[in-house]
């Protein structure tokens, strides 16, 4: 994992807020406010955080589906942040995305075969019989029967639809697949199928995943490394086992404590934080988490912590303990 | 009973006249509401149904005389007549009026549709305040008939034509009160009218109702004392009679001839054979039966007798090609003519029949097209908006046109010169036959009525045979009024002259 496939440096995405009656820009949504991470080949980086913290915005920016406000995105060492639309098309083949809602991601008026074959057709990689054969192969890869190519999305179940989405993402032979909550909309019993499929595919093809979810257990299961986001920033990033065993940021700790564990004998729920996530419009100064943090100090209100290495590639943005966060 | 004073006559009006100046209009939408405001020098007797020379009576003129070899017509004016604004009427007003009509004065009408009526008038001279003379180029006995028309009121000198369009001042039995476009026209009794005891009515109110069904329903419901004159069609008449059995209705010819204008200056109708074939194909009875449920008249240019004074007798009419009773024989002959011109069952002639977008124009055009089918002519209806009709006709941008020609005065001079003389503005077809034109002058100067009739018949026959502007039929329409309205006379050979309404009264 020395080769860096994706490198994101100080990514920012700000939306103007034309709030109020005035339609004037009264503020800025700091959807993503300086996010940096990198992703090696064959690696899965999990991204967790509460709703609205900017996970999807990161995902879309990486793919240049939205234009980042600032920062840099390097794919295979090449800066793609400012590539023109045509130049970008070439890179589209290396990175693909799978969305949360499989039904909404499929054009209801197209048959599954055409949906999966579309990327190939668009890039002129195959046509006619060849195309059909490639699509059939993709169908098999994701565990669908080729005879289902003629069916419309509504004729599939949720899990199967997500498989179609994955097949479409696979079609161009990407090296990076961004998964934006690919299993959140699925039933528990189906979720496992999709997660297993993703893991299997990674083993076979060596993809890298940027895997977004709000379910910690799922992220933990699939990722090699996990990043925790809060209000547009990454507050902690570490190897999976390290992070779960030894969370250093109070928010990560709260998050872990809040996950209900499917064992009646395990410790009961103990909410470690109060209150709601502040709005990303004009977020609190200093450490964005200080409003809910049990350990908040005067300094946290003023100073904005940066990601610091706490050893073993465990990075954390917390002012406690000389910037290494609270250790358990 | 004895005529009674009082009451306001409520009438509906079929549409909003463009202005209030009779001289600037050529539709009785203008005559009906504004004739009561004015007086003529002379006028057709208002209680006689038929307009004849004998029925012309003095009005503003006390008397008249033909002098100077019938080349001067002199009028003595009534004394003490006052305009509605209080100014006295003088011979100068008469001169002003006719000078303006002849286009000889400083002030101009915006439009002057009956200028040609005065083609034979050299000038107008006055002699004192009460005498005025028309000096003619040649004798024209029918000038008097033209002067007796509702179209020929005397205007005041001191009111500009513009003002006359919006607020007419006359000497007549009723004073103009207001005209709200598309809404109403109101007249009130002229208390100072020179004819003592007249008018009987306190006023007349016209409500403008362009929608015919609404108007008739309103009449039936008693909202109006009288319909708009000659606006009730035969089917509606039946309706009125069934719903308001007491209403009095009369159906009379209105001297409006439905005719075909033929563009003989361009193919295919430059070919006389095709023109003749077309004339032969007409089944006039069918037109009349459809349009008027049988109540219409077949005739030539002039309204046929008995209502018309100058129409050809039936026997003569039937000798004209196309007027014969055997339609099938006519059409056989027509087909032969068509074949001669190169058309037949396999080769139809396609023509456009242009007409205005008004039912009375459109309906006969539909029938015409159907009848033309029988002689290998495929007609296509081309409906033209009113605004574009005359420009289109003037450009000669048509093949056949279905047209209505209203004759204000049942007199050959009016219709011949206006519609058939070379260069006349209303001669839409540009029919020009110098020989016939000479005959127009001959008949015009003829003082002997019987002789003149003969001449007119011959001319009329010739005009029909030339298929210049074949007349299809003369329409009849109805007028209805409530039984308590007395003294209504519907004129039978003109729908332009009978609306002074000073003798009308209401038995209520």
């Amino acid at each position, binding site marked *: 994992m020395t080769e860096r496939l994706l490198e994101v440096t100080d990514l920012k995405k700000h939306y103007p807020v034309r709030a109020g009656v005035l*339609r004037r820009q009264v503020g800025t949504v700091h959807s993503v406010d300086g996010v940096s991470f990198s992703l090696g080949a064959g690696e899965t980086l999990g991204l967790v955080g509460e709703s609205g913290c900017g996970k999807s915005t990161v995902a879309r920016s990486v793919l240049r589906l939205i234009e980042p406000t600032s920062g840099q995105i390097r794919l295979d060492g090449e800066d793609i942040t400012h590539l023109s639309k045509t130049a970008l098309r070439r890179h589209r083949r290396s990175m693909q995305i799978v969305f949360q809602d499989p039904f909404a991601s499929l054009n209801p008026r197209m048959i599954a075969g055409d949906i999966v074959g579309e990327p190939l057709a668009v890039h002129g990689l195959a046509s006619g019989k060849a195309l059909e054969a490639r699509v059939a192969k993709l169908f098999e890869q994701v565990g669908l029967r080729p005879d289902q190519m003629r069916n419309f999305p509504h004729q599939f179940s949720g899990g199967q639809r997500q498989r179609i989405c994955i097949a479409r993402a696979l079609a161009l032979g990407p090296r990076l697949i961004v998964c934006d909550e690919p299993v959140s909309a699925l039933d528990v019993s189906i979720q496992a199928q999709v997660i297993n499929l993703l893991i299997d595919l990674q083993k076979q093809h060596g993809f890298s995943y940027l895997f977004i979810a709000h379910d910690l257990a799922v992220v933990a299961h699939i990722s090699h490394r996990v990043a925790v986001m809060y209000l547009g920033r990454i507050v902690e990033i570490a190897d999976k086992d390290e992070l779960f065993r030894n969370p250093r940021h109070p928010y990560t700790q709260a998050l872990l404590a809040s996950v209900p564990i499917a064992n009646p004998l395990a410790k009961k729920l103990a909410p470690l934080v109060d209150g709601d996530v502040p709005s990303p419009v004009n977020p609190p100064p200093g450490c964005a988490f200080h409003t809910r943090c049990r350990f908040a100090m005067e300094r946290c209100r003023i100073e904005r912590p940066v990601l610091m290495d706490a050893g073993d590639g465990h990075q954390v943005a917390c002012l406690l303990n000389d910037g290494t966060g609270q250790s358990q | 009973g004895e005529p009674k004073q009082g009451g306001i006559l409520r009438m509906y009006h079929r549409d909003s006249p463009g*202005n209030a100046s009779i001289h600037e209009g*050529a539709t009785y939408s203008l005559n009906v509401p504004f004739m009561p405001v004015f007086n003529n020098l002379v006028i057709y007797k208002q209680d006689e149904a038929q307009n004849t020379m004998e029925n012309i009576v003095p009005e503003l003129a006390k008397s008249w005389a033909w002098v100077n070899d019938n080349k001067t017509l002199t009028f003595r004016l009534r004394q003490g007549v006052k305009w509605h604004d209080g100014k006295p009427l003088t011979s100068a007003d008469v001169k002003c009026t006719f000078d303006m009509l002849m286009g000889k004065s400083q002030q101009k009408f915006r*439009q002057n549709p009956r200028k040609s009526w005065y083609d034979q008038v050299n000038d107008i001279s006055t002699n004192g305040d009460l005498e005025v003379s028309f000096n003619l180029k040649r004798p024209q006995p029918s000038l008097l008939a033209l002067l007796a028309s509702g179209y020929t009121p005397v205007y005041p000198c001191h009111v500009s034509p513009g003002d006359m369009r919006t607020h007419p001042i006359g000497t007549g039995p009723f004073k103009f009160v207001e*005209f709200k476009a598309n809404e109403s026209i109101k007249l009130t009794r002229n208390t100072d009218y020179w004819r003592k005891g007249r008018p009987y009515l306190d006023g007349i109110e016209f409500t403008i109702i362009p929608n015919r069904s609404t108007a008739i*329903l309103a009449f039936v419901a008693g909202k109006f004392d009288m319909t708009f004159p000659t606006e009730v069609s035969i089917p509606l008449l039946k309706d009125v009679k069934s719903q308001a059995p007491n209403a009095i209705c009369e159906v009379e010819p209105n001297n409006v001839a439905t005719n075909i204008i033929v563009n003989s200056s361009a193919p295919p109708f430059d070919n006389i054979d095709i023109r003749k074939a077309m004339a032969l194909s007409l089944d006039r009875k069918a037109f009349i039966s459809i349009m008027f449920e049988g109540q219409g008249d077949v005739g030539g240019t002039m309204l046929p007798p008995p209502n018309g004074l100058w129409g050809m007798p039936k026997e003569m009419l039937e000798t004209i090609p196309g007027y014969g009773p055997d339609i099938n024989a006519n059409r056989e002959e027509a087909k032969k003519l068509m074949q001669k011109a190169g058309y037949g069952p396999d080769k139809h002639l396609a023509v456009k029949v242009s007409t205005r977008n008004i039912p009375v124009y459109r309906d006969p055009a539909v029938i015409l097209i159907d009848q033309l089918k029988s002689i290998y002519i495929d007609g296509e209806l081309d409906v033209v908006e009113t*605004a574009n009709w005359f420009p289109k006709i003037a450009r000669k941008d048509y093949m056949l046109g279905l047209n209505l020609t209203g004759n204000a005065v049942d007199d050959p001079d009016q219709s011949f010169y206006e519609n058939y003389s070379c260069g006349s503005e209303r001669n839409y077809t540009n029919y020009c036959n110098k020989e016939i034109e000479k005959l127009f002058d001959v008949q015009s100067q003829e003082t002997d009525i019987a002789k003149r009739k003969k001449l007119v018949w011959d001319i009329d026959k010739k005009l029909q045979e030339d298929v210049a502007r074949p007349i299809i039929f003369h329409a009849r329409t109805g007028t209805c009024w409530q039984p308590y309205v007395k003294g209504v006379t519907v004129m039978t050979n003109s729908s332009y002259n009978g609306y002074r309404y000073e003798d009308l009264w209401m038995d209520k």
Partner: protein
Amino acid sequence: MFAYLVRRLFLMLVTLFGISVVIFFLLRIVPGNIVDILFAAAGYVDPADKANLEKELGIDQPLIVQYWHWISGFLRGDFGYSYVSEKPALQEILPRIPITARLAGLALLFSASIGIPLGVISAVKQGTRLDYALRVVSLSGLSLPSFWLGLLILTASVAMFGQIPIFNPNPATWLEAFATYAVPAAAVGFRSAALTMRITRSSMLEVLRQDYIRTARAKGASDAAVNYKHALKNAILPVITVIGIEAAFLIGGLIVTETVFNIPGVARFLVEAIRWRDYPIVQNLVMLIAVVVVSANFIVDMLYAVFDPRIRYTD
């Protein structure tokens, strides 16, 4: 709020300017002009007379000049002179406005007071016979040509009462005054009531599916409270919009109804003016109508803001 208002007003002005251009040039491409029509009535065309008249009316000038004359006059409140009646156009238009306004207001009132309750009933009773019946009635209301409906009313009232409820400029009794406006207003309003009912119904159905309706029921609220207090308050918003848009449609309906009932309002007057190519009347009248329609939409937007606390003016 102020800036929003300014922005909206600016857009309104742009729209109105556009309308003025459209209407002006649309009228100019219409073949035939007032002069032709006047001469049609006279039955002949004399090119010299025609030219004189065109000059007199100023329609021989370049279009831009004519447009400038008109629009600058319009802004000053000087509407020019009617070509036909030769009276000041303002004087022709003004007295007719209250008539049409009364009619339109009454029709809208009718439409709202019939359409909204029936729509609510129909939605609440969805799938029942009553709902079917109401829907069929409203649909048939939308299926009748309005002139036909008007004529039927006139014919029936003549046949049954011997009376005809056409316009009466000076009504003698209160009843007459009422009939003068109410009957035609009902004839126009019937159609828009049907429309309002349909919108109310579908909007209500939409709202009745919402979770908060279930919440209200779960509280133990009565049907009436749920339907009127909770649902209608939310469902009324699209209805208001539609009623606003209907203002424009209403003019169309009024043209026909004013003709049938012989009401001397602006709508029928406009048609006559179009027929006569009486540009000063048509242009100014259309502009006035446009001002009304555009302001109606504006007012609806404002109402929306009043009724809906969520509105944030972010569009």
